[in-house]
């Protein structure tokens, strides 16, 4: 007899429907698994056999053929266990197969017949909804995550025996509750901008970066607080919308680092500078998301940027330009979302001492700063300084009110809202994502300002790209001030954040 069961495999972070076909017929007892399975799937035979027998079900002593369709796509991981087991049950007539066509399922089996959680349950549920399934069956531990998807029934299945009961109509599970955390769940641990003393310049730059989605470079000596500041960027970004949160959770679920609940904060990833290109943008024989994908809709922090391998930093070109990563393996191409704000940090010079005790020669200085050129630095709109805060100021009871993250976030949200309205229909969500052409169309300048900027291009050697960057940042500054038209001071301020000055030293 023949049975077909639908399950979903991960292609990068996207769900790919896989039909598990099981054929049971008389003959010498054998179990054949085809359809490009990996080792973990081939081993599922042992798990399925033990799980069935331990659930007081029968493992048919017949000729069993299992096909994973489409047969040309490589498949990996233990999440096919459940589908194979259910296929066997249906094909051997132990459960009715009539309603199986409405179900999609995913899960790993333990030998006892219990279901273990799998990676990418949320992705599977999303795929199942898109493919038109009425119900998705997942292990109990994955159910809250999968239930985030609306418009499809999610059932939490504790064990294979329960599943058999369900198919027989002897058991009706409660619909699973979606894992949307209470509003105040995670707030206490989020670092607040108010913890940072001084650093008014860096805070201002962070606010602009958050408001416009601009990439940022912080320059300053070790221990000045660059990492501390960067960690506080997610807290001043607008809270993720439901769709964004779903995207974040989906990525984390696929990578197996999620907590099984909907993300309420944007991710912050800070890979060490020894990371490889593969680790940064994703890859491997079984392509896994890289750090830029894990930071999707959040912040990727690259401390000690010049120490990163050139190949790793260069690999960021595509994600920075397109907000996604494409990885080609053999005949297939995987697509990972990768839209993050990049915050980079570096020292002023390789010896990283104070200017008056620095022992670097200009040659060494030039070499260090040249390592910063390339596609990443081309996409950095803002540079700010982070100086060590004098000890007196650290201990002094701060007289002026600290910059609270909630206030900054409120301004950022307003600025983003204005951008959303203005950029509607362009496919771009914030100023930082505008390319050169869009920038010039979206940021009209009054004649006198345009003339001034043009004259500047000569005087301070502002490149064409630098010109666009200044416009983008000025637009965000005006958005923060809720102004429709740019003023001279917006342009002036934007001008002071530009990176062009590097070129002179490196030349």
């Amino acid at each position, binding site marked *: 007899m023949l049975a077909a069961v639908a399950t979903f495999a991960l292609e990068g972070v996207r769900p790919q429907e896989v039909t598990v076909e099981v054929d049971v017929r008389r003959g010498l007892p054998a179990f054949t698994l085809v359809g490009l399975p990996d080792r973990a799937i081939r081993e599922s035979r042992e798990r399925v056999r033990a799980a069935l027998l331990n659930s007081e079900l029968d493992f048919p002593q017949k000729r069993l053929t299992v096909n994973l369709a489409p047969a040309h796509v490589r498949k990996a991981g233990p999440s096919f266990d459940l589908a194979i087991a259910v296929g066997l049950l249906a094909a051997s007539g132990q459960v009715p197969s009539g309603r199986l066509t409405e179900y999609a399922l995913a899960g790993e089996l333990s030998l006892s017949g219990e279901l273990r959680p799998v990676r990418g349950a949320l992705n599977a549920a999303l795929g199942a909804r898109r493919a038109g399934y009425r119900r998705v069956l997942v292990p109990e531990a994955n159910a809250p995550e999968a239930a985030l998807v609306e418009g499809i029934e999610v059932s939490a299945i504790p064990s294979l025996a329960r599943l058999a009961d369900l198919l027989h109509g002897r058991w009706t599970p409660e619909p699973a509750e979606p894992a949307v955390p209470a509003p105040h769940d995670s707030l206490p641990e989020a670092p607040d901008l108010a913890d940072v003393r001084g650093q*008014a310049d860096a805070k201002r730059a962070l606010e602009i970066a958050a408001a416009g989605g601009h990439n940022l470079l912080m320059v300053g000596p070790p221990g000045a607080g660059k990492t501390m500041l960067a960690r506080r960027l997610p807290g001043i970004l607008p809270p993720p919308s439901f769709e964004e949160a779903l995207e974040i959770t989906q990525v984390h679920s696929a990578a197996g680092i999620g907590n099984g609940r909907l993300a309420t904060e944007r991710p912050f990833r800070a890979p060490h500078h020894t990371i490889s290109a593969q680790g940064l943008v994703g890859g491997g024989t079984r392509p896994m998301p890289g750090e830029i994908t894990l930071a999707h809709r959040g912040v990727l922090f690259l401390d000690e940027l010049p120490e990163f391998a050139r190949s790793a930093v260069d690999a960021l070109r595509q994600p920075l330009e397109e907000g996604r990563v494409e990885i080609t393996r053999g005949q297939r191409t995987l697509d990972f979302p990768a839209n993050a704000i990049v915050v980079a940090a570096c020292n002023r010079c390789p010896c990283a001492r104070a200017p008056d005790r620095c022992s670097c020669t200009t*040659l060494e200085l030039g070499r260090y700063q040249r390592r910063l050129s390339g596609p990443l630095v081309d996409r950095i709109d803002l540079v700010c300084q982070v100086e060590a805060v004098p000890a007196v100021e650290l201990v002094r009871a701060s007289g002026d009110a600290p910059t609270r993250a909630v206030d900054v976030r409120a301004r950022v949200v307003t600025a983003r809202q204005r951008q959303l309205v203005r950029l509607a229909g362009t496919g771009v969500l914030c100023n930082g994502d505008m390319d050169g052409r869009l920038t010039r169309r979206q940021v009209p300048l009054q004649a006198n300002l345009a003339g001034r900027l043009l004259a500047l291009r000569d005087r301070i050697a502002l490149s064409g790209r630098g010109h666009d960057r200044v416009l983008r940042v000025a637009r965000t500054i005006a958005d923060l001030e809720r102004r429709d038209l740019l003023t001279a001071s917006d342009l*002036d301020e934007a001008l002071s954040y530009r990176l062009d000055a590097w070129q002179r030293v490196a030349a």
Partner: protein
Amino acid sequence: MIDACDACLRRSFLIAHLAPRIAGLLGRGERRATGLLGLPESDLLAAAAGRRVEQALAFLDALSVGRERGRLAAAHVIAVCRHAEAYPPLLRELGDPPAVLFGTGRAEVLAVLARDPTVTIVGTRRASPYGTEVAYALGRGLGAAGVPVVSGLALGVDGTAHRGCLDGGGVPVAVVASGPDVVYPRRHRSLHARIREAGLVIAEMPPATEPYRWSFPARNRIMASLAHMTLVVEAAEPSGSLITADFAKDLGRCVGAVPGRVTSSVARGTNNLLKDGAAPISGTEDVLDELFGVGVRGPRDDDRTNEPADPVLARVLDAAAACDSVEAVARATGQTAATTRAALGRLEAEGYLTRRDLEGWERTAR
């Protein structure tokens, strides 16, 4: 402008032709070919061409000075021979002055060199930030005071002195070891172009000649003799900068040195010069005092006359010159970070400030 006699041009092209031979002729330790360059043509041929003398003679026979002159004119190259009026008079004090001075840039600069007191700034290619800062400040101060600044277009101190002079609105003169149109080091392409625009690039070698090891010390004698005073900013020992200082001493010109840290290897040369009696230089004023007499001519104080009208801008401008970071400027002026940033951007746009890589801003000599 071409004002050179046939014999001098012929000699210059011959030296350029023999240049690779001269490189092989000099021993490893020996770096100065100056004795050689002073020889009359026949002795030069005998000394430098050696067994290839026939080849060299054939080159001279084939050389058409008229055609070369046409080529120079077409390329807008300046060529002035030692018999010409425009030839810098100070150069004639050399025992072996270059036969022809080739140049690209503004020809009027030759007249300025003949008229005004001139300063040469040299130093190591591996300059420390301290050396870079001093070289820039001296170049800018002298440029702003109307003193032409001669240097060698090398990396480090030389290039920085040129930049300072350009930013100070002065007349930069680069003396190069190659032909005047060959940019060496390549990294100084844009600097070469800026100097051509505002001043002059000069060379002993005709256009398109590549530099050789020996042509750097040979170029140093021109730098030393072009100026009334030679300043050494940072120099290791031994070094090309000290060769230049030696030439200046031999010519009886004034030599100044910038004191450096005693523990720094690039300060050894300059500190030893000071021990030997060089004038200690701690700023533009010291140089002007040496050139014109104490107090006769001070550094130009345009900074005061060119205050921005806006009081906030003026305050930020004062603070920016003294502070290292935006943070410190904001604290000193009591402005918010955003206002300070806007003011700094405005000041830079209007030319009051320029960036000093990422450490901060500094005032221009506007």
